[in-house]
C-alpha cells in the first residue's frame, strides 16, 4: 500500500455526514458552471454568465476542500459567501441593473447552496 492510498483511506474513513454534505454542495456548484454552455429552453436551467461561472468555481472548490479536510469554518465561510453573492443578485434585480448578467435563477441556486453549506458547517460533527 502506498502512502497516498493510506492517506486516501484515512480521509474517507474520517468523513462525517456534514463533511459529505459540504462536498456534495461544492460539487453541485462546480457542476452548475456547465449551464454557461446552454442557451435557452430546455437545458438552460440556471443563468450562468462569466461572472457567475467565476463565483461557482471560486466557491465550489473551497466548499469541496472544506468538506474533504473536515474544516467546518471553511464550509461556513463559503456558505456565507454564497449568500452574499445571492444578495448582490437580489440588489441588482431591485435596482434594475445588469452588470453581472445574472437573474433570479442564479439567485435561487446560490441561496440554496449558501443555506445548505451553512447548515452543513454548523451541524454537530457527531451525527
Amino acid at each position, binding site marked *: 500500500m502506498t502512502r497516498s492510498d493510506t492517506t486516501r483511506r484515512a480521509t474517507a474513513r474520517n468523513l462525517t455526514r456534514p463533511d459529505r454534505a459540504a462536498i456534495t454542495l461544492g460539487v453541485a456548484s462546480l457542476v452548475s458552471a456547465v449551464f454557461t454552455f446552454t442557451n435557452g429552453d430546455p437545458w438552460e*436551467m*440556471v443563468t450562468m454568465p462569466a461572472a457567475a461561472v467565476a463565483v461557482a468555481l471560486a466557491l465550489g472548490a473551497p466548499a469541496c476542500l472544506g468538506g474533504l479536510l473536515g474544516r467546518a469554518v471553511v464550509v461556513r465561510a463559503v456558505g456565507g459567501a454564497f449568500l452574499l453573492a445571492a444578495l448582490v443578485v437580489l440588489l441588482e*434585480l431591485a435596482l*434594475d441593473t445588469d452588470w453581472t448578467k445574472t437573474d433570479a*435563477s442564479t439567485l435561487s*441556486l446560490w*441561496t440554496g447552496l449558501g443555506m445548505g453549506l451553512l447548515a452543513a458547517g454548523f*451541524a*454537530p460533527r457527531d*451525527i
Partner: protein
Amino acid sequence: VEAEAAKVAEPTATMRGGVAAARVGVALLWIQNVEWKVPPDFGENTQRGLFEWTSWAVDREVFAPWAWFVEHVVFPNFVFFGWMTLLVEASLGAFLLIGLATRFWALVGVAHTVVITLSVLRAPNEWHWSYFLMLLMHIGLFATAAGRCYGIDGLLRPAWARSSHAMGRLLLRLS
C-alpha cells in the same frame, strides 16, 4: 425475525435516490422558471411576461372568485405580487434543492401551484396535466418527507430531535 422484518421494510438506496432525484428535479423546475419573473415591472408596461400570464386568470377565467381577486387586488398592486412571486419561487428552488424544511416548502409548492393553475389552466396551448402533475409532485414530496432522503433534513433531524431550542423543534416539524 423482527430485526429482519424491520430491515426489509426500510427504504432502499434506490428508493431514497429516486425521492431525492424527484426533489431536485422539482427544485430545478422552480429555479428555471423564476428566471422570467423580471423586476421592476414584471412585464406590466409591455403586457408581457408575468403580467401577461397573470392576465389569463381574467381573460380566460377558471374560477370566478379568483378572477375577481386578480382583477381587483393583484393588478392594482402588481409590482408587489410580482416580487412575492419571485421570492416564493426562488425560495422553492433553493430549499427543495438542498432539502431543508422540505415538508413546509412542499406545502408552499402545493399552494403556489394551485394559484398558477387557477390563473393559466385555460391559457392558449397549455396542457392541463402539466399543472395537475406539478400538484401531484409536491404532494409526493410532502408525503415522502423528501428532504430526509439525501437532503439537509436527513442530516440535521437527529440534532433537531435532541435540541431544546424552539427553532430546532420547529424545523423538526417542518421537515
